[in-house]
C-alpha cells in the first residue's frame, strides 16, 4: 500500500524557537490518523507545513506523493484543509460558501452542483443551504467547512482541531459525519486534537506530539497496551470495618488505597486479580459491596506515561499563540 503522507525529519523554527523538532511518520491511504497533543505542541505548525502554508526549516514531506515545497501546486490540488480557525464567510449562505471554493478549485459546473448537493446531504445541512452562515451554530459552521474542504474531491483531508470549542453533542455529530464521509469515498484523514476521547474513537492510529517532538505512535489499543497497566477500582461498601483500608491494601496488585468515607479508590497493576480478591475478602468479612467500577487504561494514562504530565494540566498552560494573530475560536 502506498503512503498518503510521508514526513521525514521535518523541522520548523521561528527565530531560535523550535516549534516542530524532527518529526517523521507515514500515513497509509485510507487511514484516519490523529495528531494528539496539548496546546503549543506544534500540531498546527506541522499541519501548516503539510498543506503548503509554511515552508519547513528542514526535512521533507510528501503528500499524495508530491513534495510540499517543490510541488506545492500538485499538493494543493490533492488536499482539502479545514484550518483551526472558523473560516467560513459569515455573510454568505452555506451553498455560496461551497460554490466559491468549488470555483477556487476549478471544479466544473455540473460536477459542482452534484457534489455540493451530496456533501450538504452528508453533513446534514441540505435544508439550511440558503441560510447565511452567521445564523448557524458553531457545530453547523464546522460542518459547512467540512463540506467545503471536500468540494473538489481531495484524496487527503486535513482537519486542525475540528471540534475544539464545540459542545459534546456537536462534537459527536462531527465524528459521525467524518466516519460516514470516509466510508463513502476514498479518503485519508489527518486530524489534530487535544481531546483524548476524540483520538480514541475516531483514529486508526495516533501520534502523540509534545514540545514539537513525536513521542509515541500506534493504534489507540496498542498504545494503551504498551504502557504498564494501571487500573483504578472504585468501590463503596455498606458499613466497612475500621481497618478495611489496611485490609484492602494487602490484596494482590494493589499499590495504593485512598478512602473517602465509605468509598475506596484502589490503584492496581492487575485489575482483574485485585477485583476478584476484593470481592472474596468482602464476602468473607460479611461486608456488602454497594457499588464497584473498574477503569482500564485510558489515553490519558498513555499521555502521562510518555510525556510525564497529564494532558489536562498542559491544557492550562496558555500557548503564546496558535498563530500570532489568530483569534481563538469560541
Amino acid at each position, binding site marked *: 500500500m502506498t503512503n498518503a503522507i510521508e514526513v521525514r525529519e521535518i523541522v520548523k523554527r521561528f527565530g531560535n524557537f523550535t516549534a516542530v523538532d524532527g518529526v517523521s511518520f507515514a500515513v497509509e491511504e485510507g487511514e484516519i490518523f490523529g495528531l494528539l497533543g496539548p496546546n503549543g505542541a506544534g500540531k498546527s505548525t506541522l499541519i501548516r507545513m503539510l498543506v503548503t502554508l509554511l515552508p519547513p526549516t528542514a526535512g521533507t514531506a510528501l503528500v499524495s506523493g508530491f513534495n510540499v515545497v517543490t510541488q506545492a501546486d500538485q499538493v494543493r490540488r490533492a488536499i482539502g484543509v479545514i484550518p483551526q480557525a472558523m473560516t467560513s464567510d459569515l*455573510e*454568505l449562505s452555506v451553498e455560496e460558501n461551497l460554490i466559491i471554493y468549488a*470555483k*477556487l478549485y476549478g471544479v466544473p459546473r455540473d460536477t459542482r452542483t452534484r457534489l455540493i448537493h451530496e456533501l450538504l446531504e452528508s453533513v446534514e445541512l441540505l435544508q439550511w443551504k440558503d441560510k447565511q452562515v452567521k445564523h448557524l451554530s458553531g457545530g453547523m459552521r464546522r460542518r459547512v467547512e467540512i463540506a467545503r474542504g471536500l468540494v473538489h474531491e481531495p484524496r487527503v483531508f486535513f482537519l486542525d482541531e475540528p471540534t475544539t470549542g464545540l459542545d459534546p453533542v456537536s462534537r459527536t455529530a462531527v465524528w459521525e459525519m467524518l466516519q460516514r464521509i470516509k466510508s463513502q469515498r476514498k479518503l485519508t484523514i489527518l486530524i489534530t486534537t487535544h481531546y483524548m476521547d476524540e483520538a480514541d474513537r475516531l483514529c486508526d492510529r495516533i501520534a502523540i506530539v509534545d514540545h514539537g517532538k513525536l513521542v509515541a505512535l500506534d493504534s489507540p489499543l496498542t498504545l494503551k497496551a504498551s504502557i504498564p497497566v494501571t487500573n483504578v477500582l472504585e468501590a463503596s461498601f455498606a458499613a466497612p470495618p475500621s481497618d478495611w483500608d489496611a485490609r484492602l491494601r494487602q490484596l494482590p496488585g494493589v499499590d495504593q488505597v485512598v478512602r473517602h468515607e465509605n468509598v475506596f479508590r484502589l490503584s492496581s497493576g492487575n485489575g482483574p486479580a485485585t477485583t476478584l480478591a476484593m470481592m472474596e475478602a468482602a464476602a468473607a468479612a460479611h461486608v456488602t459491596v454497594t457499588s464497584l467500577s473498574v477503569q482500564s487504561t485510558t489515553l490519558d494514562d498513555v499521555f502521562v506515561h510518555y510525556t510525564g504530565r497529564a494532558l489536562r494540566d498542559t491544557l492550562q498552560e496558555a500557548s503564546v499563540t496558535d498563530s500570532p*494573530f489568530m*483569534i481563538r475560536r469560541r
Partner: protein
Amino acid sequence: MSRMWAIVEREMRRFRRSPILIVVSMVFPLVQLIVLGYAFGGNVKHLKLAIVDQDHSLPAVRVRELAQAVSAGAHTLDLIDYADEGQAVTDLRNGRINGVLTIPPDFSRRVLRKDAPNVALIADNTDNVVSAAMAASLTSMLAAYGAPPTMVRRPAAAALDIVEVYPYIPYIQYLLPGSIVMSIFMMVMIGGGIIFIDDKARGLHEGYLVTPITKLELIAGFNVSGTIKAVLAGFVIMLIGSLIAGVPNPFDGFRIMRLAVVIVITAFALISMMFLLMVRVSDPLMPRAIFGVLNTVLYFPSGAVYPQQGFPAWMQAIAVVDPFTYAVHAFKSLLLKNTGFDAISGDLLYLFVFSTVAMTAATLLFKRTL
C-alpha cells in the same frame, strides 16, 4: 483567471450584504461636504459697514446710494452712519461693526477733476473671510460708479497677511472634488484595508492559500474587488454631490464618461497604495490606527479644501507626491470648468505611474505562504 473572479464574486456578495459599510463610506464624505460647504461657503450677509462721510457732496451721496442699493438687494451690507472716523474704528476693533468705509473730504473735488478719487475701506483683517467678502462686494459696487474711484484697503489691526478665500465659486462646489476623492479613499480604507486585514487575522486567507490559486490571481482578486467597491462609492458621491452642490448640468453624458475614467484610475491608485501599506501587516489595529492620520495627511494638502498656494513649503512637498492632489485637480477641472482630457492628462499620467509603482512593489512583497 477564473479563480480571480471567484474572489471578486465572494467580495461583492459580502459587500452587498453589509449595507453598514456602504452607508458609512458614503455618508461621511457627504456630511462633510454639506457641513463644510455651508459652514464656510455660505454667502456672508448683513455685514455691518460704517460709513464716514467727510465730504457730504453729491458724488459722496451717490456712493452712499450705491451702498444702500447693495444693502437693500443682496443684504450683504447693513449701513450705519458715523460722523467720526475715530469712533468707527474703535467700534470696528470692538467687533461691533465689520468695516468702515470712509469718503475723504477731497472726494468730490477729485471726482470732478477726474483725479483718481479714493474711498478707504478699513477692515478687520483678523477675519479674512469677512473682510475679503466686504472688499469684493464694495469693489464690484464701485465698478458701477461712473468714473470708478479706487478703493484703498487699510488694515485696522496689526499687519496680517491677507489670504483670499475664493469667493467667486460657491465653496461647496469647490469642496466637491475633495469629497469624491474622500469617498473613494474611505471605501478603499474600510472595504479594502480593514476587511483585508480582518480576514487575514481571522484566518480566512489560510482558506485561500491552501487552494491552487496563484499569487497573481489572489492579488488581482483582492484589488479588482477593492477597486469596484471604491468606484461605486466615488460614482454615487459624484452624482449626489453634484446635485447638492448645484454643479451646472450634472448629467452631461460626455462629462460623466470623463469623470468615470478619473474615478476608476483614482480608485485603482488608492487601492494600490493601500495594498502596498497593508501587504505585510497582520494586526487588525494597524489599518484603523493609520486611517485617521493618512486621511489628514492626504486630504488637506491636496488642495481639496484650500488652495495649495497658501501652504508652507513642506506641505507643498507632500502635495506633490499626494495622489489626492492629482485626483482633486482632475475632478475640479471636469466638474467646475468642464474641460476635456487634455487639461487633466498630467493628472491621469501621475495616477497611472503611481498605481503601477505601488502595485509592483506590493506584488513583490506579497507572500503566498503564511
